[in-house]
């Protein structure tokens, strides 16, 4: 298929997943801050996690709750805001309407227009939980509609690859939010208060119930990180996301598993297999934050590999070719 089309289906999925996860970020923080008094409220970590501090500082004075939510939700000048992501998703969907199903297009369109309307009304901050729940649900709907109405051929796999890579990236970031949120005092570590915070992290990854079913233990930082990073079965864990992404990649190329023919397969294969031989103690040994930062950079590297291998095939440079007789 055309590189441009593959790339647009890929990015359509990434943007929708990104919008969903920005909603999750904000949700985790709303959760975390609920039990904190105003003096201790911290919203800047969210901006830091998204890596957009400079852009934020250029437009806003205070990292207040309202400003951060505005920046991450409907600031059109922030390319990673929910509004921008959904707009880009819609643009991508629009230019591949002949490839995707009309139900997918309708869903993308409806989600974008809903956010646009909410922004116009200006009442997102009145009831943020509802709004973010809607953004998350719209993303789930899109995924479900895509799975049920689009042939699971090459384009679909490029889409799923995009969605799962984005999810791996964002689950890592959600987990990392906790790192940035400084605790009020050292004594709180391991306190019921700390437990509550870790529970909020789980909840934001829609992982609390599944965690309980799988672990049946009290919530500890070690187990939460273990679950979100290494669970084989939970579909939002980094490991599971990478494994599914790799499956799609190999379905696209036909390369047998545990082998590679291009940069994307090599990089993703290496990263995924690292997770197969990893225990949570190894993660804590290097430091959770340091580990997550490295994973994020590896995921970016996989993304570059996908771009090089599929989206930007290059012509043979004219200089290396024999001159055609005139």
């Amino acid at each position, binding site marked *: 298929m*055309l*590189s*441009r089309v593959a790339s647009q289906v890929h990015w359509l999925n990434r943007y929708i997943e990104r919008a969903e996860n920005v909603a999750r970020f904000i949700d985790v923080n709303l959760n975390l801050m609920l039990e904190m008094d105003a003096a201790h409220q911290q919203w800047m970590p969210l901006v830091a996690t998204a890596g957009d501090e400079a852009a934020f500082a250029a437009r806003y004075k205070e990292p207040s709750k309202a400003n951060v939510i505005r920046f991450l939700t409907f600031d059109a000048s922030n390319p990673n805001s929910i509004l921008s992501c959904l707009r880009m998703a819609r643009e991508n969907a*629009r230019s591949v*309407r*002949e490839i995707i199903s009309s139900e997918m297009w309708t869903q993308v369109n409806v989600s974008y227009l809903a956010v646009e309307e909410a922004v116009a009304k200006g009442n997102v901050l009145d009831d943020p939980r509802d709004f973010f729940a809607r953004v998350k649900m719209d993303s789930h709907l899109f995924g479900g509609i895509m799975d049920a109405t689009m042939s699971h051929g090459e384009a679909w796999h490029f889409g799923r690859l995009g969605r799962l890579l984005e999810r791996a990236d964002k689950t890592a970031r959600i987990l990392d939010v906790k790192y940035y949120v400084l605790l009020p005092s050292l004594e709180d570590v391991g306190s019921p208060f700390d437990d509550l915070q870790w529970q909020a992290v789980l909840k934001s990854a829609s992982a609390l119930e599944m965690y309980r079913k799988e672990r049946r233990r009290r919530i500890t930082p070690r187990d939460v990180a273990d679950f979100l990073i290494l669970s084989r079965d939970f579909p939002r864990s980094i490991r599971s996301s990478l494994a599914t992404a790799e499956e799609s990649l190999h379905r*696209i190329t036909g390369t047998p598993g545990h082998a590679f023919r291009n940069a994307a397969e090599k990089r993703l294969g290496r990263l995924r297999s690292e997770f197969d031989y990893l225990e949570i103690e190894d993660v804590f040994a290097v430091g959770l934050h340091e580990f997550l930062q490295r994973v994020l950079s590896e995921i970016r590297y996989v993304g570059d590999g996908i771009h090089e291998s599929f989206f930007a*095939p290059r*012509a043979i440079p004219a200089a290396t070719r024999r001159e055609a007789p005139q």
Partner: protein
Amino acid sequence: MYGDKAGREKIFPFDIVPRIVRWQEWTHVARGLEQRIRALNAFVADVYGEGRILKAGIVPEDLVRSSRGFRPRLVGVRPPRDVWCHVSGIDLVRHGDGALYVLEDNIRTPSGVSYVLENREIMKKVLPELFERANVQPVANYPNLLLETLTQLSDRRDPTVVVLTPGMYNSAYFEHSYLAQKMGIELVEGSDLVVDGDEVKMRTTRGLRRVDVIYRRIDDDFLDPKAFREDSLLGVAGLIDVFEKGNVALANAPGTGVADDKAVYPYVPKMIRFYLGETPVLPNVPTLVCWDDKERAEVLANLDKLVVKAANESGGYGMLVGPHATPDEREAFAKRIEENPRNYIAQPTLALSRVPTRVGGTFEGRHVDLRPYVLHGREIKVVPGGLTRVALRKGSLVVNSSQGGGSKDTWVLGPEGA
């Protein structure tokens, strides 16, 4: 469909009352269109070939060379089978005398055929019973005929055919996408294609893949920044080189604009006589060419009665409907004509026929034209029907969608008793 800034599409209104064309009249029209396309194609081939008609003094050489659609660098080029005009849309109007006249020849990248197909689909859904009884000639085969026409342009086995679009912000993008989908071929943008050595290739997820035939819906000007407009971002650098080497076919071939020029149009009946030795089946609308001093004087003296059109515009832009214009508008237009006489032609204000059209809760007469589509591959095929455009504003003679026009389904009824 016209995209605006927020990315919303405007609607091309559809009128539910079909426009009826009887079989006997249609066979006459089809014969006339086939004849006209043969002559126009011969003309384009001649202009870029021997130039017989120019040497014979039948069409003025200066007029041809000064046409905006004339591409000097294509002189001497011969596309496959000497066919240049693969897809044409000929605008017909019925005058007060009841006869159908040719108003315009659209042989660059005519659009609108998707509406013909979509309007038919709507009618079948809305009026199935009427449809069953009426013996309406089908149009749904158009994408197959188009693909066949395009495939015939390559000698390679199983050639790769693509539709080239300027992209989703183009007003006809819906049609480009629609046709690609119906033909089951790739819809590409300029950036999807690259000239690699002597071939045109498209960028796919499995690397570069050769393209043999391009149904391009981009104007000549923007097709190749190396050959034509340097600032074009829509085209493919080096495409015309490959075309000239015969390694890629373009439909329509570049350079056909020379026969789409409204100042060349008055000569089409003469072309038919010259190349085919036949009498034109479909008459032209009498036309004055402002390039000619005598005719220009006549135009300027009668601006209040005439319709004046820019020779190289389409979509109803750059025209003056004399009887409906204010004296100031006529004066301003007279100045433009005198500044650039080559670019203007004038025609009598036609008493365009009207057909019943649903307006509010009732039916009223509205002016219409008809654009049938003609395909020229190994042979010439005329699609039975075409796009009937209707001026929805009462009394308006301008049917273009950009100027408040709508469309109707066109029913060519089969032979009586069939």
